[in-house]
């Protein structure tokens, strides 16, 4: 199987958009990519043609890849419905209400996620997988599905996206790497610095230090762009221009611009492709 898992140092680090860009890039190269997110916590969902429900981010990523969204792209969707109740959507259909006294059945959800990923992999050439939140929330790491869980189950390699806009990006990248469990840490092969403004040469000393300390390779520094992308969860507060009345076509032209910028900025797609072979659980 081929694919890569995109992890973020926090919510809103830019995982969703980065994955969409990767989908567009790979689609341009004729590599037949498909997006995947094992578990998505989002209120904004999209109805697929076959009547299933998935996170809106995966729908936009599918379009970026030039394909139709389908439920396997987001097998577990958690929709907070207030008062501590979360509706779990499994393979596109509402399956149960999660409450404090009735927690999610993690082994089942994990197994469903891996099965969906394998089905998807059978139909496409490359899986662009998105993680969820930060992978190293110490209080939740052992129950994780979309990040550490997926890495353990499938052996997929990962890249880590850090957001420089709020500052502290080196600390975020290094701290995330340090807190990952020993058995999966080496699967994180590269990192990306996202939303940078100014002259990237000022970052050089910091980047080489992180490479030295962690063995992760810096795949690129992506510039801040005044572009609006769909908002996955209530925490993100992105703004920017979204030209045109049709959100989908406006998004597509944005993602084209972002992909062009990534290519012209010398983003190291080759290294990313070279780490993309992985075993599956099967």
């Amino acid at each position, binding site marked *: 199987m081929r694919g890569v898992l995109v992890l973020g140092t926090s919510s809103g680090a830019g995982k969703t958009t980065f994955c969409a860009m990767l989908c567009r890039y790979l689609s341009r190269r004729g590599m037949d990519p498909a997006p995947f997110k094992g578990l998505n916590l989002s209120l904004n969902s999209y109805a697929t043609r076959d009547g299933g429900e998935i996170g809106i981010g995966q729908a936009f990523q599918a379009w970026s890849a030039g394909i139709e969204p389908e439920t396997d792209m987001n097998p577990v969707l958690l929709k907070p419905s207030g008062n501590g109740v979360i509706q779990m959507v499994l393979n596109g259909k509402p399956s149960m209400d999660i409450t404090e006294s009735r927690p999610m059945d993690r082994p089942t959800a994990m197994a469903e996620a891996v099965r969906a990923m394998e089905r998807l992999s059978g139909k496409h050439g490359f899986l662009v997988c998105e993680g969820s939140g930060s992978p190293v929330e110490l209080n939740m790491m052992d129950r994780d599905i979309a990040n550490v869980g997926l890495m353990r189950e499938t052996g997929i390699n990962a890249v880590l996206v850090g957001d420089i806009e*709020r500052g502290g990006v*080196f600390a975020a990248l290094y701290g995330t790497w340090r807190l990952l469990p020993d058995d999966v840490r080496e699967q994180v092969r590269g990192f990306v610095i996202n939303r940078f403004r100014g002259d990237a040469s000022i970052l050089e000393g910091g980047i080489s230090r992180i490479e030295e300390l962690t063995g992760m390779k810096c795949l690129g520094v992506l510039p801040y762009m005044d572009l609006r992308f769909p908002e996955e969860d209530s925490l993100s507060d992105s703004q920017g221009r979204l030209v045109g009345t049709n959100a989908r076509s406006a998004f597509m032209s944005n993602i084209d611009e972002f992909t062009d910028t990534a290519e012209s900025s010398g983003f190291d797609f080759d290294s990313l492709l070279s780490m993309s072979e992985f075993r599956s659980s099967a």
Partner: protein
Amino acid sequence: MDCIKKKVNEKLKAGWIGPNLRCDYHPSHFSGQDCTFCYCPFYPCEDTDLGDFIVGRRGQRIWNCSDCLFIHRTPVVKFILSEIDRLGITEAGDPRFKDVLASAKERYFRRGRALMVVGATSDAGKSVTVAALCRILHRRGMLVAPFKSQNMSLNSKVTRSGSEIAMIQTLQAKAAGLKNPDAHMNPILLKPKGDTVSQVMVLGQPYGDYNVTDYYGEFVPGPGREIVRDNVEFLKKRYDLVIMEGAGSPAEINIYDRDIANMGAAVIADADVILVVNVEWGGSFAYALGTIELIPEDDRKRIKGVIFNNLRGKPDGFKSAIPEFERISGVPVIGVIPHADVTLPSEDSEALRGVHGKGEGRCLVGVIRFPRIANFTDLDPLFLEDVSVRFVEKASDLDGVDAVVLPGTKNTINDLKWMNERGISDRIRELRGKVPIVGICGGYQMMGSVLDDSQGIEGGVPGTVMEGLGLFGNRTEFGEYSKRIVNNTAQMLVGDGGEVTGYELHMGTTDVTEKPLFEITGMFNKDRQVEGSVREDEMLFGTYFHGVFDRMPFRRYFLSFVSHDGERVDTSDTRDYDDIVEENIDRLADVFEENLDMDALLRILGVAE
């Protein structure tokens, strides 16, 4: 001198009086100060721990001890009085006062300690943490000063002596119970002018414009470090504790050796450090550990505690991971602070990012959202009123507004061009006489008929003379590169004649042809001075005063012109903004105090209770 002697003699007769709450000037330094020696018996002590020589207007040397707090501490005062009694001193000028001061200093004068609060990111909650700590320690009777060596902010205020410092340090000083924040508390202020250039203010006065490379290459290694050292020392001599605030993340390892805002300042001040991490975006354990471990070992030892801030929802799950975090990092977690819903002025324009409006009142106030909007804390009191605020970025945003506010800007000329290009200027002219329009500072300059920037001082393009909105006949000229920085109290010449306070911060001078809005009532003014412009019949108001809405009278007056379908704004609950802020500082401090390990904090501070 004879005058002072006479006053001192009166003081000696009066004996101990403690805080003089009936005095109009109380508290002149800090709340709880001792006023017994309103006139100091040691003057001029010429002790450089307590004051310094300055040059007077006629070139003479004058001993200046206006920042001395030592003589206003009750234990010191009581000791001095007992010594006076013991030695039988009855007259000012007695040579034995020298010995009394020496023994008082011996007993009570201690250099304060410094504690630094750094954040894993911008917006981590550093400044509110400093404000909360200032209030908590002030409530426990300590004399505390806030300090931020270098602040980058477009929200600034003017001190009593006419220096410009970041607004947030004035708020923290208020939290510490200090009456007169001064420039030592924020000696370097960077005011961004574009993406890469900032105006550098040193001790509240313009120093020069620097780009990023020159700032780190020349300013920081040159005067920068000395400025930080001198001002921390100044505060340490006067206060028990100096609570320092970092800037951004302290672990920007690409520029670590050029830092004077974070660990660099902590080293200069020999301060222990607390790291604050905002939990809201997730990844907070990673941010905390990464920050701690990327800091070189020598400096890392200074980090004595971590505060996780802004936790929403139930804390149990999050807290369950803390022992493991402490084990891995080796640094104790001294607090997990829940999200505190407090009303405090916003520090930087990030707070306005993605915000398109505020409030739920019926009347709609359109605030022009200039690209270089500055001192927008002016608007905070309006947000608390029974109105809705809409940020106007295009002409159609003015549809249906019941009032228009033109706030301050870092660049009047370029933002006026922006307004003209977007058709906002024309829409405002159409609204003339239909809804009230108020301009503050740069917005006030725009309301005039002409803005003359022939020399290109404001907009950067020589030969620029622009037509203003023409709502007033005033003419503003940007004649020389100089900045007016003053702090004023004034009386309204309209409405109920109530009091307003405000501070001016601007380039350019305005030739006013309109009826004035305020009369300045500062105590040192001999000539009658007026300020602002008003055309009440057309509901046009303009002023250079930042903070004009803080006090009730003008806010209530302005809102009296605002109505929606004949329904007016209810201002019956209107209060002074200062009182609201004061209450919220207390609430913030309560939340921190309840959720901090106070014993651990006091141990870090080296304060025994």
